[in-house]
Protein backbone atom coordinates (compact mmCIF):
# COMPACT_ATOMS: atom_id res chain seq x y z
CA UNK A 1 0.00 0.00 0.00
CA UNK A 2 1.02 3.60 -0.19
CA UNK A 3 0.01 7.11 0.66
CA UNK A 4 -2.78 8.47 -1.51
CA UNK A 5 -2.96 12.17 -0.78
CA UNK A 6 -3.92 14.32 2.19
CA UNK A 7 -7.20 13.74 3.93
CA UNK A 8 -9.08 14.33 7.12
CA UNK A 9 -10.11 11.17 8.97
CA UNK A 10 -13.86 10.62 9.02
CA UNK A 11 -13.79 9.80 12.72
CA UNK A 12 -12.23 13.22 13.36
CA UNK A 13 -15.13 14.98 11.63
CA UNK A 14 -17.56 13.09 13.83
CA UNK A 15 -15.50 13.80 16.94
CA UNK A 16 -15.61 17.53 16.22
CA UNK A 17 -19.36 17.30 16.64
CA UNK A 18 -18.99 15.53 19.96
CA UNK A 19 -16.43 18.00 21.35
CA UNK A 20 -13.65 15.45 21.55
CA UNK A 21 -10.90 17.79 20.38
CA UNK A 22 -9.72 21.10 21.81
CA UNK A 23 -7.12 22.94 19.73
CA UNK A 24 -6.71 25.87 22.13
CA UNK A 25 -3.07 26.79 22.66
CA UNK A 26 -1.90 26.17 26.20
CA UNK A 27 -5.09 24.79 27.72
CA UNK A 28 -6.25 22.53 24.90
CA UNK A 29 -5.38 18.96 23.99
CA UNK A 30 -1.91 17.81 22.99
CA UNK A 31 -1.50 16.87 19.34
CA UNK A 32 1.38 14.87 17.92
CA UNK A 33 2.71 14.17 14.44
CA UNK A 34 3.96 10.67 13.69
CA UNK A 35 5.74 9.83 10.44
CA UNK A 36 5.48 6.72 8.30
CA UNK A 37 7.12 4.89 5.43
CA UNK A 38 5.33 4.37 2.14
CA UNK A 39 4.32 0.91 3.34
CA UNK A 40 1.75 2.52 5.62
CA UNK A 41 -1.86 1.97 4.66
CA UNK A 42 -4.20 4.75 5.71
CA UNK A 43 -7.70 5.59 4.53
CA UNK A 44 -10.39 8.01 5.64
CA UNK A 45 -11.55 5.17 7.88
CA UNK A 46 -8.33 5.34 9.91
CA UNK A 47 -9.25 6.21 13.49
CA UNK A 48 -6.09 6.13 15.62
CA UNK A 49 -2.31 6.28 15.77
CA UNK A 50 -0.47 3.07 15.00
CA UNK A 51 3.15 2.00 15.28
CA UNK A 52 2.84 -0.15 12.14
CA UNK A 53 5.20 1.17 9.45
CA UNK A 54 6.17 4.16 11.58
CA UNK A 55 9.63 5.43 10.66
CA UNK A 56 12.61 4.80 12.89
CA UNK A 57 16.01 6.38 12.98
CA UNK A 58 18.28 8.75 14.81
CA UNK A 59 16.44 11.80 16.11
CA UNK A 60 12.99 10.21 15.92
CA UNK A 61 11.11 8.41 18.69
CA UNK A 62 8.01 6.25 18.29
CA UNK A 63 4.92 8.39 18.63
CA UNK A 64 6.51 11.30 16.79
CA UNK A 65 6.86 14.92 17.85
CA UNK A 66 4.54 17.13 19.85
CA UNK A 67 2.92 19.94 17.89
CA UNK A 68 2.38 23.48 19.12
CA UNK A 69 -1.29 24.36 18.74
CA UNK A 70 -2.42 27.69 17.41
CA UNK A 71 -5.72 28.70 18.98
CA UNK A 72 -8.56 28.45 16.41
CA UNK A 73 -9.64 31.66 14.78
CA UNK A 74 -11.87 32.80 11.93
CA UNK A 75 -11.34 34.40 8.54
CA UNK A 76 -14.56 35.60 7.00
CA UNK A 77 -16.99 32.73 7.39
CA UNK A 78 -14.24 30.09 7.72
CA UNK A 79 -12.99 28.78 11.07
CA UNK A 80 -9.45 27.52 11.08
CA UNK A 81 -6.60 26.30 13.23
CA UNK A 82 -2.91 25.81 12.65
CA UNK A 83 0.27 24.33 14.13
CA UNK A 84 3.80 25.68 14.34
CA UNK A 85 6.31 24.00 12.04
CA UNK A 86 7.78 20.86 13.60
CA UNK A 87 11.48 20.00 13.35
CA UNK A 88 13.21 16.73 14.19
CA UNK A 89 16.78 17.86 14.82
CA UNK A 90 19.99 15.97 14.06
CA UNK A 91 17.83 13.32 12.44
CA UNK A 92 18.63 10.54 10.03
CA UNK A 93 15.24 9.40 8.79
CA UNK A 94 13.21 8.81 5.65
CA UNK A 95 9.45 9.35 5.66
CA UNK A 96 6.73 9.41 3.04
CA UNK A 97 3.88 10.78 5.11
CA UNK A 98 2.50 11.51 8.53
CA UNK A 99 -0.47 11.36 10.84
CA UNK A 100 -1.57 14.10 13.21
CA UNK A 101 -3.34 12.65 16.21
CA UNK A 102 -4.72 13.79 19.54
CA UNK A 103 -2.54 12.35 22.29
CA UNK A 104 -4.80 13.66 25.05
CA UNK A 105 -8.00 12.06 23.80
CA UNK A 106 -6.60 8.55 23.41
CA UNK A 107 -4.65 8.55 20.15
CA UNK A 108 -7.51 9.66 17.92
CA UNK A 109 -6.46 10.39 14.33
CA UNK A 110 -7.00 13.88 12.91
CA UNK A 111 -5.46 14.04 9.44
CA UNK A 112 -3.22 11.99 7.20
CA UNK A 113 -0.50 13.87 5.33
CA UNK A 114 1.15 12.71 2.12
CA UNK A 115 4.60 14.23 1.50
CA UNK A 116 4.33 13.31 -2.19
CA UNK A 117 7.60 11.37 -2.18
CA UNK A 118 10.08 9.98 0.30
CA UNK A 119 11.79 12.78 2.23
CA UNK A 120 15.16 12.14 3.85
CA UNK A 121 17.38 13.94 6.30
CA UNK A 122 20.87 12.66 7.07
CA UNK A 123 22.41 13.93 10.29
CA UNK A 124 20.37 17.07 9.68
CA UNK A 125 17.00 18.68 10.30
CA UNK A 126 13.69 17.25 9.12
CA UNK A 127 11.03 19.97 9.19
CA UNK A 128 7.32 19.73 8.46
CA UNK A 129 6.23 23.13 7.18
CA UNK A 130 2.55 23.91 7.73
CA UNK A 131 0.62 25.97 5.18
CA UNK A 132 -0.40 29.58 5.57
CA UNK A 133 -3.09 29.85 8.21
CA UNK A 134 -5.77 31.45 6.08
CA UNK A 135 -9.24 30.55 4.85
CA UNK A 136 -7.86 28.92 1.70
CA UNK A 137 -4.83 27.02 2.97
CA UNK A 138 -4.94 26.32 6.72
CA UNK A 139 -4.29 22.75 7.74
CA UNK A 140 -7.69 22.38 9.44
CA UNK A 141 -10.59 24.60 8.50
CA UNK A 142 -14.36 24.56 8.46
CA UNK A 143 -15.90 26.54 5.65
Amino acid sequence: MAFTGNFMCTSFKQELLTATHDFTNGTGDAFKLAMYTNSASFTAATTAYTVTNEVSGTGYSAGGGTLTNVTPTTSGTTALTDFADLTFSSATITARGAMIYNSTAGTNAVVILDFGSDKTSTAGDFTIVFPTADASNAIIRIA
Partner: protein
Amino acid sequence: MSFTDAIGTGGFSVSVATTSHRGFTPAEVAARCTNRIVAVADTAPPAIRQQAEAFRGHVEKVVEFYMQEAVNSDRTTVCNALTEAGHPELATLIRSL
Protein backbone atom coordinates in the same frame (compact mmCIF):
# COMPACT_ATOMS: atom_id res chain seq x y z
CA MET B 1 -20.88 22.85 7.32
CA SER B 2 -18.40 21.53 4.78
CA PHE B 3 -14.84 20.36 5.12
CA THR B 4 -12.36 20.96 2.35
CA ASP B 5 -9.91 18.20 2.89
CA ALA B 6 -8.79 16.83 -0.45
CA ILE B 7 -5.63 17.94 -2.16
CA GLY B 8 -6.31 19.52 -5.52
CA THR B 9 -9.78 20.64 -4.51
CA GLY B 10 -8.85 23.61 -2.39
CA GLY B 11 -7.61 21.23 0.28
CA PHE B 12 -4.60 21.33 2.54
CA SER B 13 -1.04 20.19 2.21
CA VAL B 14 2.21 20.47 4.10
CA SER B 15 5.70 20.71 2.72
CA VAL B 16 8.86 19.14 4.08
CA ALA B 17 12.28 20.73 4.30
CA THR B 18 15.33 18.61 5.09
CA THR B 19 19.08 19.02 5.38
CA SER B 20 22.02 16.63 5.28
CA HIS B 21 25.04 16.96 7.55
CA ARG B 22 24.08 20.51 8.57
CA GLY B 23 21.21 22.51 10.01
CA PHE B 24 19.14 25.15 8.26
CA THR B 25 20.86 28.46 7.52
CA PRO B 26 19.38 31.74 8.78
CA ALA B 27 18.40 32.52 5.18
CA GLU B 28 16.46 29.26 4.85
CA VAL B 29 14.67 29.74 8.15
CA ALA B 30 13.98 33.40 7.35
CA ALA B 31 12.27 32.40 4.10
CA ARG B 32 10.01 29.98 5.98
CA CYS B 33 9.32 32.53 8.68
CA THR B 34 8.42 35.21 6.14
CA ASN B 35 5.99 32.88 4.40
CA ARG B 36 4.17 32.53 7.73
CA ILE B 37 4.08 36.27 8.31
CA VAL B 38 3.26 37.58 4.84
CA ALA B 39 0.92 35.79 2.47
CA VAL B 40 0.06 37.27 -0.91
CA ALA B 41 -3.09 36.03 -2.57
CA ASP B 42 -2.83 34.89 -6.19
CA THR B 43 -5.97 36.89 -6.83
CA ALA B 44 -4.58 40.19 -5.50
CA PRO B 45 -4.58 43.09 -8.01
CA PRO B 46 -1.13 43.42 -9.70
CA ALA B 47 -0.27 46.74 -8.05
CA ILE B 48 -1.10 45.49 -4.57
CA ARG B 49 0.61 42.19 -5.26
CA GLN B 50 3.79 43.99 -6.34
CA GLN B 51 3.76 46.10 -3.19
CA ALA B 52 3.13 43.07 -1.01
CA GLU B 53 5.95 41.12 -2.64
CA ALA B 54 8.32 44.05 -2.04
CA PHE B 55 7.24 44.15 1.60
CA ARG B 56 7.75 40.40 1.88
CA GLY B 57 11.29 40.75 0.51
CA HIS B 58 12.07 43.47 3.05
CA VAL B 59 10.67 41.42 5.94
CA GLU B 60 12.72 38.41 4.86
CA LYS B 61 15.95 40.41 4.87
CA VAL B 62 15.23 41.85 8.32
CA VAL B 63 14.31 38.45 9.76
CA GLU B 64 17.44 36.87 8.27
CA PHE B 65 19.66 39.57 9.72
CA TYR B 66 18.31 39.16 13.23
CA MET B 67 18.40 35.37 13.00
CA GLN B 68 22.09 35.60 12.14
CA GLU B 69 22.52 37.94 15.12
CA ALA B 70 20.85 35.33 17.35
CA VAL B 71 23.08 32.57 15.98
CA ASN B 72 26.21 34.68 16.57
CA SER B 73 25.10 35.60 20.07
CA ASP B 74 24.29 31.99 20.94
CA ARG B 75 27.74 30.92 19.70
CA THR B 76 29.28 33.49 22.02
CA THR B 77 27.38 31.92 24.91
CA VAL B 78 28.37 28.39 23.87
CA CYS B 79 32.01 29.36 23.37
CA ASN B 80 32.17 30.91 26.82
CA ALA B 81 30.58 27.83 28.39
CA LEU B 82 33.11 25.58 26.64
CA THR B 83 36.06 27.79 27.61
CA GLU B 84 34.95 27.91 31.25
CA ALA B 85 34.56 24.12 31.18
CA GLY B 86 38.20 23.75 30.10
CA HIS B 87 37.68 23.16 26.37
CA PRO B 88 39.14 26.27 24.67
CA GLU B 89 39.97 24.27 21.53
CA LEU B 90 36.29 23.36 21.10
CA ALA B 91 35.33 26.99 21.69
CA THR B 92 37.71 28.02 18.91
CA LEU B 93 36.19 25.41 16.60
CA ILE B 94 32.66 26.63 17.28
CA ARG B 95 33.70 30.25 16.83
CA SER B 96 35.14 29.46 13.42
CA LEU B 97 31.92 27.97 12.04
